[in-house]
């Protein structure tokens, strides 16, 4: 059977999932983006990867609409007036979400919901608001149905933020993923505690170091002052913009081609990095100049996104295996100083090369691509996410692990993260979790997330899935959220159930 017929006749895909797969297969029949022989050489050896974004991009990978602007002005194209009340706002947003594309075909960003909702709560009691929030969250979970979809909160304490946390704990959904922007001194302890209690109840939210992120991108005119938002598996992107694409160097595979650490550092790494940079240029030029997305989308026309607030993300993955292959046994990445120093050297070199490259259409990145520690997807084996330490090799002492994270985080302005299952009893001492966040963020760790080790909701690369849904899919049944597909394979292939449980 053809690839198309395989999709058409599949028994474990929903109608919506078949539609998405068929669209991808159709897109991949075209090959409009030229590649260099160098790119092809590394690509064939799986040392650089286009993330299966599709051969002919007709929409940016991630779109981060300025939802607050949408709330202020409504939409001509969608024939929506600016909302007068919370119900209007929630309905308008639900309509907008149906019209925001991304690489998954569905929105990866649904808004900074606390800032968005707070002005519309006057005159409503908590009892009136909570059921509305829960319905709204369920709507996103059941219609967007992709764990890459993300909402933001914080860093300020708001009534809307508190009620959203309460609603999220009650609905126990995998979608959307929540990030709390946290900054000591701005985020009150009391609000942080509520967030942590929620994390211990439903694995949401995760925590972004606001102090580190808030100066990454210039704020949009008349837009949110912090200028950024967190989407998908922790991509830090410009609000009212987004990411054109995410491509990556697979260090784990690149190391297979190396005869020595020097060979990798001095030849393979610069060549692969250069080849990927050229490819990203071509990809972005096609999207901007030929696809007509930015020329025709009502999102641009109505100012919900600006073309000049998009960036290309330069990704990497598989540091752990790369170091293992280069240095051999005895030098375990994460605990061995020589291994860690080599990793540092690799990242320093790669980052310098990326930052020296003149990236087209990258005004908001000051003419540069942004570094991202890519966390994988699907059932890929042999590549530990980004610069994370492989499951099973984590340092004995949690704090040593966090120090290592902070050291490696410094290279990635467009997102890098870690995931820690924690003792369920930590729910009774969330101050301890808060202390850990404060400590980690004080030493410049940029992002971390927790879930209780006995939770049904678990984090895969960063996105959330329900174990029970993964089990259903593994039995051959169709499930609503297609991130359960990615999650199921990844969970098994990377032994994620064996992640070291922290705070025990």
């Amino acid at each position, binding site marked *: 059977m053809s690839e198309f017929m395989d999709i058409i006749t599949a028994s474990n895909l929903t109608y919506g999932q078949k539609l998405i797969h068929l669209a991808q297969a159709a897109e991949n029949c075209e090959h409009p983006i030229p590649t260099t022989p160098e790119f092809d050489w590394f690509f064939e050896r799986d040392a650089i990867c286009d993330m299966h974004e599709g051969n002919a991009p007709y929409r940016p990978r991630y779109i981060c609409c300025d939802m607050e602007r949408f709330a202020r002005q409504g939409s001509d194209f969608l024939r929506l007036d600016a909302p007068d009340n919370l119900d209007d706002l929630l309905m308008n947003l639900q309509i907008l979400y149906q019209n925001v594309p991304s690489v998954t075909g569905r929105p990866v960003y649904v808004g900074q919901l606390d800032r968005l909702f707070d002005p519309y709560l006057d005159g409503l009691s908590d009892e009136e608001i909570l059921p509305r929030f829960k319905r709204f969250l369920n709507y996103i979970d059941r219609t967007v149905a992709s764990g890459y979809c993300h909402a933001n909160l914080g860093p300020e304490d708001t009534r809307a933020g508190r009620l959203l946390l309460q609603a999220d704990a009650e609905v126990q959904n995998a979608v959307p993923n929540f990030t709390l922007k946290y900054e000591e001194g701005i985020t009150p302890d009391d609000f942080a505690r509520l967030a942590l209690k929620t994390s211990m109840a439903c694995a949401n939210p995760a925590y972004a170091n606001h102090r580190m992120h808030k100066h990454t991108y210039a704020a949009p005119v008349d837009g949110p002052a912090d200028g950024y938002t967190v989407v998908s598996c922790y991509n830090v992107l410009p609000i009212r913009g987004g990411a054109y694409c995410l491509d990556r160097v697979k260090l784990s595979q690149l190391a297979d081609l190396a005869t020595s650490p020097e060979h990798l550092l001095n030849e393979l790494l610069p060549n692969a990095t250069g080849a990927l940079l050229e490819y990203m240029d071509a990809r972005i030029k096609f999207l901007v100049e030929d696809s007509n997305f930015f020329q025709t989308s009502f999102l641009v026309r109505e100012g919900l996104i600006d073309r000049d607030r998009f960036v290309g993300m330069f990704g990497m993955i598989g540091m752990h295996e790369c170091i293992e292959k280069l240095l051999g046994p005895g030098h375990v990445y994460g605990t061995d100083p020589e291994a860690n120093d080599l990793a540092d050297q690799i990242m320093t070199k790669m980052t310098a090369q990326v930052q020296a490259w003149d990236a087209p259409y990258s005004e908001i990145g000051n003419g540069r691509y942004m570094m991202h520690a890519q966390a994988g997807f699907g059932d890929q084996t042999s590549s530990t996410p980004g610069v994370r330490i492989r499951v099973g090799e984590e340092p004995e*002492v*949690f*704090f040593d692990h*966090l120090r290592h994270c902070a050291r490696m985080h410094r290279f990635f302005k467009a997102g890098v993260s870690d995931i820690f299952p924690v*003792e369920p*009893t*930590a729910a*009774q*001492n969330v*101050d*301890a*979790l*808060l*202390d*850990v966040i*404060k*400590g*980690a963020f*004080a*030493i410049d760790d940029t992002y971390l997330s927790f879930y209780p080790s006995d939770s049904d909701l678990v984090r895969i690369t960063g996105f959330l899935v329900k174990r029970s849904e993964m089990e259903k899919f593994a039995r051959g049944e169709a499930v609503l959220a297609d991130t359960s597909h990615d999650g199921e394979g990844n969970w098994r292939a990377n032994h994620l159930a064996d992640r070291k449980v922290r*705070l*025990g």
Partner: protein
Amino acid sequence: MELTAPVNKVIPFSLVDGPGSRCSVFLQGCNIACAYCHNPETQNLCLGCGLCVEQCPAGALSWENGRVRWDKDACVQCDTCIHVCPHKASPKIEWLTPGEVFETVHSYQPFIRGVTVSGGECMLRADWMRELFALCRAAGLGTLIDSNGCVPFEEHLDLLDVADGVMLDVKAWDEGTFARLTSGDVCVVKRNLALLAERNKIEELRIVVVPGWNDPEATIAGIADALGEKTATTKLKLIRFRRFGVVGALANANSPTDERMSELEALAREAGFGQVELR
């Protein structure tokens, strides 16, 4: 000679030894012997009988000048030495100065808000603890004492000056009951309770509920009476007996039921405790 104390272990992170993220230091040696002790191997100092040396499968124990020497790096933490010890002791301890322990604790900053010293019974090393706490405080770390209350705090008021508070066990209220359960004297505990309350140094009070062995109703009432109006602001933890790690008469005893724990919680609230936690 610089002061040293027998350190059983230092754990970088504890969820249960006081508020927030804390480093816990466990000292070897206790002045009582509770029937429900979860760590009986911390009760006594090694006598040097040497029984464990020949049993150690890793060759981590040896004789040196009539004492058992423990090679930390060779040890595989199988705990054979602890299981064969007839004296409720452990050869796996280190005699460390306050400065040495502080270095370890300090290395866990900024992830911890404080240190809690426990045991064994840490008040047997009050002078050592005072020095450790002074160093911790200077580094911005909180300091808590976890004590069974059987050493008189009135003899160590200078320690209280550098301690944020005490997590105090009140294991029973009746003298005979207390003596049977612990071999100790509850009068000292009661004096400590009054002294610490007066100086606002009670971080929390703890009662382990052991069916048939202690008198939690009388203990709750006795504490409330002793604390007076401070009862409302004092945190009381009611802890279920669990047989994990226990040897001797209670090795196979049952935990109290959930109903029993709830009754006691209600009773504590009636007695005026504002913060009651079940564990």
